[in-house]
């Protein structure tokens, strides 16, 4: 976190996420001051981009693209080839609606909100264009329901990599529906409405997806 004695710091590239109220030695007043400065910096950046200032646009991209990229990449794994288009769509959509940005959240949070919608657009498109959910389900192995129960404790650090590996190995529709339901925390009803399917059909696909995921998860675990 930059202090007031940091004249070289560029307030235009900071955002509220840099303000860490739990930082050692941090007291409330400097944190509040920093937050106010960050907010003012964001407002200035937004005004400059709206004025079509190209240098401000460069700062806008430089300051936030890593966060948007990380979010999109995480949510679209294993289809990482889709990430670049989503990130570009996010920034263009942000530019189109920047005049409506009120500063009620940080710019980064606002951009991540747009990214979330764009990622869900990808889920929706890909689940819609592929074959009906039931068509794949009919080919599933009924023995999958015999997958043993999984351990209760999940280690976050290791599970992230393993989850990514498993998601890359299950059918795309299964991965998407799991990401949508659990990572994006959308209800079955919302998913069904978005792709024009019945809730029952989404439930069945989810059940199959969970079984397939667990099966591969346990395999990964056995093989270290």
């Amino acid at each position, binding site marked *: 976190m930059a202090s007031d004695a940091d004249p070289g710091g560029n307030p235009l590239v900071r955002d509220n996420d840099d303000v860490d109220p739990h930082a050692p030695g941090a007291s409330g007043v400097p944190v509040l001051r920093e937050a106010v400065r960050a907010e003012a910096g964001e407002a200035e950046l937004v005004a400059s981009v709206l004025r079509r200032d*190209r240098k401000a646009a460069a700062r806008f*991209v430089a300051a936030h*693209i890593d966060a948007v990229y990380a979010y999109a990449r995480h949510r679209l794994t294993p289809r990482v080839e889709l990430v670049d288009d989503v990130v570009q769509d996010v920034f263009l959509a942000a*530019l*189109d609606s920047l005049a409506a940005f009120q500063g009620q959240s940080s710019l980064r949070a606002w951009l991540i909100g747009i990214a979330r919608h764009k990622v869900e657009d990808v889920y929706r498109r890909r689940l819609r264009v592929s074959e009906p959910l039931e068509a794949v389900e009919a080919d599933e192995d009924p023995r999958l329901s015999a997958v043993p129960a999984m351990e209760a404790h999940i280690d*976050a650090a290791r599970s*992230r990599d393993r989850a990514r590996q498993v998601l890359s190995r299950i059918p795309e529709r299964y991965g998407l529906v799991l990401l949508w339901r659990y990572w994006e925390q959308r209800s079955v009803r919302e998913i069904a409405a978005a792709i024009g399917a019945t809730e029952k059909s989404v439930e069945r696909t989810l059940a199959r997806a969970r079984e397939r995921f667990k099966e591969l998860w346990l395999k990964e675990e056995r093989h270290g």
Partner: protein
Amino acid sequence: MADDLWFERLAEGAGAPIEARAPAVLKAKVYSAMLTRMAESGPLDDLLHSKRAGERLCVFENSLTLLPIGADLRSKNPCRVCHARVLAERMEHAPIFWPGCPYSEFHNG
């Protein structure tokens, strides 16, 4: 449902976005796309304004501010015909080192 709970916990624990830096090529492409979109709705801000505001201009942009030309030309986007942009959008470690060039800063920043 036990399965639901397990997946919810997995997503919660493993759901934090990974630390990842966007490739410089992507930064360059997004910036170019933004400039194109900005220019669609009107001329870009005059480079003289940027210069007076203390912004760093590249050598080409700076030359536009020194020539006896109108604001309409200074509001054009010279990056569209610049080799630095072309390289930056195609190579991850593009050999561009122009001071004040945003494409160079995406790659070397």
